[in-house]
């Protein structure tokens, strides 16, 4: 291995980000990823275990970990915390009955040491459905304003139509980049 290879490898590594997709079951985590990736979303089954997707987003390579949200799988979430740059919390905006569950799971995640400092993007998914809660309602229901430990945003989106998925991802990537590679992003990239 020559010096050039080492430098290249190092550079490549530097531009990688690890993003963790979590949320209750039926939130649409896998569907969001499939949609971003341009895959068919009709045949998405509830995730048993986890999926990993790697793709280029701008100058960065995103390693996205999508872990199943069924209750039996939630204890395993902590196995995926290591080295997480950003947490994307996906919410089923039509699931009024479980907003309390959703809030509790999110807030208990945020106390995890290994997620300290990670950027937090809340995807208020399923906005295409009539009767879904708005992002403002979800912001209140999840008590997002009490979060001081993480840099966060809420984004209304729809995995089915693809609305706002990329712009949400842009925010989270820029936020991480601003923290990790502040020297390498031009200031006009910032929100």
């Amino acid at each position, binding site marked *: 291995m020559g010096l050039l290879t080492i430098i290249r490898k190092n550079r490549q590594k530097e531009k990688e980000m690890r993003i963790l997709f979590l949320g209750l079951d039926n939130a649409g985590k896998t569907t969001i990823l499939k949609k971003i990736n341009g895959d068919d979303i009709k045949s998405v089954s*509830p995730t048993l*275990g986890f999926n990993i997707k790697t793709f280029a987003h701008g100058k960065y390579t995103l390693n996205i970990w999508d872990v199943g949200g*069924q209750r039996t799988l939630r204890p395993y979430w902590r*196995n995926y915390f290591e080295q997480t740059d950003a947490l994307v919390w996906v919410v089923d905006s039509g699931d009024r009955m479980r907003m309390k569950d959703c809030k509790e799971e999110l807030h208990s995640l945020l106390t995890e040491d290994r997620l300290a400092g990670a950027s937090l993007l809340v995807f208020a998914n399923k906005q295409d*459905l009539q009767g879904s809660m708005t992002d403002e309602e979800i912001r209140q229901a999840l008590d997002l304003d009490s979060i001081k430990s993480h840099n966060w*945003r809420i984004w209304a989106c729809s995995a089915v139509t693809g609305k706002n998925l990329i712009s949400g991802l842009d925010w989270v990537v820029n936020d991480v980049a601003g923290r990790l590679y502040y020297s390498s992003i031009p200031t006009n990239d910032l929100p």
Partner: protein
Amino acid sequence: MAEATWSFSQTFTSHFQQAQSALELRIEKARAGPSPQDDLNELSYWLAKLSKDLADASGSLPSYDQKQYELQVKTLEKSIDDLRVSSLSKPKFSFKRKVVTPSTILPTIAKEPLKSIGTTDQPSSTHLILSSRSESFLTRSSLPEHSSQTNLSIFDLDHCIVDLLGKDSVLASKDDLSISALHVRNLSNCVLLLPIIEGSALLHDMFNCTIVLGCHQFRMHTSKNIDVLLSISSNPIIETCNSIRFGQYPAAFIDREQTPVVYSVQDFSHIRSTASPHFSLLTPDDQFDLVTKVSSSRKVDAVGQIKSIVPQ
């Protein structure tokens, strides 16, 4: 069967021990290395894989072995944790540049107005609810005024028949109903007849019910004694359920011709190679009987005989 289990446990043992000692070696190496931090990610990945393999194999291994392997995985997990702690206590030296001013200021001013981008237009939202009834026959006309496409929540029903089918329903007054997501909770002794919906269905806390439903995703939690006649394009899942029987959506309830798609049920409370004891598939005879019973339930007088329709 016993022989297959035996040979499986033999191969698994050798695989597991190999992987376990390899991982142990890597942890040792990482501990001695200059920057254990870099290796942690990979180590946790291998650990996750190892414990997943073990979880997959559970049920096919002698219980003593299973326990031993679990202990080994725990030990590995602990040594990786130790490594993590020790690597954190002495941070690597690196040159740090002061943060450029614009990026420090921007987040603070941007914070308030930008927190919710892409806000939906309507200030508050409404959705369709059917709840708190007993011994009733509920149809589309029992639903409150709603838009043609909607989320539907059904909860707290006892001894009810809910018939929201469009086809052949004499009692249907509103023809336009397209359900985009379904949430159901706390139903007992009920028959639920629903059309094929576009989105996903999430059902909780049901007892002694019969459900007829077509959907894109199906999840059922903490329920018991349920017959499900289902049309689905993905795999339905159950979690903490018992005595669930699955069959096909009755062809008579569908307007267009559709060949039944065979689906496979996944039980998240039984993630093993052996068959789950919590659900079964209806035999063709049982399916026929059930469809006959369900078809007869589409009238008001059927509410009195609901016990003979739903599983007991």
